[in-house]
Structure formats: C-alpha cells, structure tokens
C-alpha cells in the first residue's frame, strides 16, 4: 500500500547535507576568495590585474573549472534553497526572537543574493551597458570593472548584493555548524556565533572596500598600467618591479 517515495524524498538527508556543504565549499569559499581578490584593487590597478592574470592563466581550463566548481554548485545550492524556502512558513511576526529573525533573513538574503548574482554575471559577461555599467574584460580588469561600476545605482545594487551574500554566508556558517553537529552546546553556539560575526564583518569590509576601490580608480591611468603590463608580458619579461604609473593609478583620496 505504501508506495516508494520519489527519488528526491528518498535521498532527502543526503541532498540537504550536500546543499549545506556546497554552501561552504565551493560556493562560500569562492565568495571569500572573490571578494578578497577584488579588494586587491585597493593596492592599485596592477595588483588587481596580476591576480586576474593568475586566474586566467588557467587558459582553456578556466571555463570548465568555473562551470564545475562555481556555476553548478551555486545552481544546486539555489535550487534546493528555493525548495526549502517554499516549504517553510516564516513567523517572525508572532515569534520575534533573534534566531527566528536570522532564519527569515537567511531566506531573504539567499533570494536577494541569487538575483544579484544572475544580474552581475549577465551584466559583466555579456550585456554590459544595457544592464548598467559595462562589460568586464580580463585583459583590462581594473579599468573595465571601474567603468562598469561607475553609475550610482549600479554601486548601490552591488552594495546590497554583496551584503546579502556575505550575511547569507556568515549566518550559514553558523547554522552549518549546528546542522553537522560541530557546535552542540548553547555556549559553543555562542562562541561560534562570534566567529561567524567576525567572518561576516571581515568579508563585508573586503567586499565594500573592493567596491569603493573600483569606483575610486582613475580609468585612464589604470588602462595605461594594464597596457604596460601586457607589453611586458609579450616581451616574455614579467614585470619584476612595480611599474611607475601604479601609484598614480588611483585618484587622490
């Protein structure tokens, strides 16, 4: 009489645990690396460009790596996430406890971050100006990113997207520890909470710092630095010393 439950329900535990794990690695880890890489723009156009060059040194492997370790895990995490959101019933109005507010925010920031990521990728990869800002070109990393982020409304949406993603990650880190049974006592949960807050504040600073850094870039000078760096590379002589225009590549602050 009892039918076999559908595949997704039979493997519900495994799927939810993989969902939780994916949020930490690779998705969360990628978020951290991504924001810290971007924050390197605060060290000047050359510093950011050399990091982008490092990533792009994967050459033809880059796209498969991005698909396997970033795109698919994010899609999996988002798909399961939407199922979870659809099955829950937030009740912050009746039970306005901190944990419950965090539960609701975790779901809200997940949706905001997902919408932001979709727009962010389409804008920088393909559409450019029609979706605000412009397209990103890894050969001219700093200058094109700076142009893309110039419009104020783009900057505001980025700030919202970054903060949503960072909250989702930091809070998710804390709940992940409960889910897997890493912190079990209330005291351990409080200590873990402090760690999550530190991680969250740190990543938020890196993300917003990167955003501010990109906006402060002097596009002309950044482009000069990038061109100079490419010439150096073409002569098979990777620059050993920081090139002269670097220091001036950022507007005086």
């Amino acid at each position, binding site marked *: *009489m*009892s039918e076999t*439950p559908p595949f997704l*329900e*039979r493997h*519900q*535990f*495994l799927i*939810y*645990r993989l969902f939780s794990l994916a949020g930490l690695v690779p998705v969360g880890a990628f978020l951290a690396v991504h924001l810290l890489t971007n924050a390197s723009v605060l060290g000047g156009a050359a510093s950011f460009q050399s990091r982008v060059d490092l990533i792009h040194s994967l050459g033809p492997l880059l796209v498969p790596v991005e698909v396997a370790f970033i795109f698919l895990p994010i899609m999996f995490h988002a798909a399961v996430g939407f199922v*979870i959101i659809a*099955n*829950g*019933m*937030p*009740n912050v109005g*009746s*039970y306005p*406890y901190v*944990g*419950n507010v*965090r*539960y*609701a925010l*975790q779901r809200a920031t997940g949706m905001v971050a997902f919408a932001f990521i979709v727009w962010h990728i389409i804008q920088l990869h393909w559409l450019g100006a029609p979706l605000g800002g412009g397209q990103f070109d890894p050969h001219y990393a700093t200058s094109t990113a700076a142009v893309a982020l110039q419009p104020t409304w783009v900057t505001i949406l980025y700030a919202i997207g970054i903060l949503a993603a960072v909250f989702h990650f930091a809070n998710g880190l804390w*709940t992940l520890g*409960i*889910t*897997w*049974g*890493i*912190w*079990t*006592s*209330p005291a351990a*949960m409080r200590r873990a909470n402090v760690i999550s807050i530190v991680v969250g504040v740190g990543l938020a600073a890196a993300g917003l710092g990167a955003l501010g850094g990109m906006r402060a870039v002097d596009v002309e000078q950044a482009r000069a630095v990038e061109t100079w760096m490419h010439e150096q590379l073409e002569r098979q002589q990777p620059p050993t010393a920081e090139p002269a225009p670097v220091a001036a590549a950022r507007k005086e602050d």
Partner: protein
Amino acid sequence: MIRAIDGDALRTGDGRSRQAAPLVRVRILRQDVAGGESYWERFEVPHEPNMNVISLLQKIAAAARTQDGRRVAPVAWDCSCLEEVCGSCTMLINGRTRMACSALVDKLLEENGGEVELRPMSKFPVVRDLVVDRRRLFRSLERVQAWVPVDDSYDHGPGPRISPEQQQDAYPLSECISCGCCLEACPQFTKIEPVLRDGESDADFEARRRQAFDAAFLGAHAISQAMLFNSHPTGGMIADERMESLTGRGGIQICGNAQNCVAVCPKRIPLTRSIARAGRAATVWAIKKLFDR
C-alpha cells in the same frame, strides 16, 4: 484597568462591590466542526485575582453568552492536569503558543492592552473551538521509537548503571510533556490536514493520513526524545533504528535552525542542543553507513 479593582470590596462579598468587579474581555477564535469555517466571538468575564486561562474558560463555558448577551454553545477546550505536566491545554494565547493552565490572566492583560485573545493551535487540525487533533505529534514519537523497548516478560536482571552525569544530562529531556509548543512555533513544521475523499474507506483514509505524517518533518520534540533514548543504555540498543528515522524523510535535515522551539518550550528543554547532537550523530551515522556497507 485591573489595578482599579477594589480588592477589599471584593473580599467583603457584599453585592454592590461585586457588581463593580471589572470585566475581562476575551476574544476567541471558534470553529464548530472539523474543517468548518472559523469565526471570532467576544466574551466578558468578571475578573478574579490569580485567574488563569482555564478558569477564564470555565466561566465562559458556564455563562455560554457572548459579550452582547447572545446565548451560544459553550466554548470547547482541552485540559487535564492543570499544572503543566499533561501537555493537553496548548493554545495560542495572545498570538503565542503556551499552556492555558499556567497562563495568568493579569499578565496577559498587561501584555495585550487589556484583552485576552485565544486561538486554537495553527499547525494541527481543529476538532472544535480550541480543541485540536495532535495525532501527528504522537506519530512522530512512534517514528523515532521514543521508548525503551522491553517487549517480553523475562527477568533479564538489573540493567546497566547510569552515571550521575549521564542522568543529569538526560533528565531535562525526560521532562517533555508532548504539548506541541515547539511544533507550533517552528517555521519548518507546517500543518497537515487530510480531508476524507468521496467513497474513501476509514482504513484508506487512515493509511493516507499516516503516509502524509511519515513524509513530513518529525519536529523538535521527537528529535530530542530520540536523543534521550539513544543515550540510555538499554534504549540505545535500537539507536541505529532511531538514526534511520532521524535521517529518513522529514528527519533532522528539515530543521532550519530558527531555534523558536527552544524559546517557547514550557519545560525549557534544551532542544537546540538535542538537535545539534542529533546532527552530529547523523553525520557520524552517514559516514559509517557509507563505509560499513
């Protein structure tokens, strides 16, 4: 408003002062039959010192008249022990799940601007007025076998000893009264109310209900009870079976860590600790299963 009561006058018992006793306003969400429409009704009850919601309901049932004097069927509710141990009187009091027998009217009036609001629990099907059908709560306890299995009458001798530390750890969990507050407040625990289909036999309906229950979230109480009996030396003999249920459909993975359960539990059971321990046990269990098969 209540501070205006002339307590001494009440104690003298003379008729005039009695009439002056302030009235407690009560708003109740009623429902005549299972699956029927719900509707609000207002009542007024003379205030008495130290009233709780059960004594309030007793007066409402005795008068069976609404605020505007209409005769109505007495309001129905569940209760038994009147001291927060049977777990049967759970309802939404001023919008928050709690035990009617330990909810003091004076505090409720302060909390809700001079009115008491009563609703049936929202996560269980209403049977009538404030009475709900909590079968799913008990089915969850069955799913995790929340007992020590002793199914024969042989004398097996004394059981293993339990250290005072273990006992201290387990005792709070054993205080669960199956009230369902943790389920009512849990955003991940949603209502299941199957409706009898045309021509469906009672047995088929019951089987369908059972199936729906078994696919859905266990709830914090059952997770905590599973951890209680797994930590018991004799109860732990079927620990693996409980882990199977905890990691099965509707198991521990559904918990979203909102931690409302622990905030509303009238017995202050450390539910989130139980949930995290169950999470740890499930992690170990899953790895073991992967490598031991």
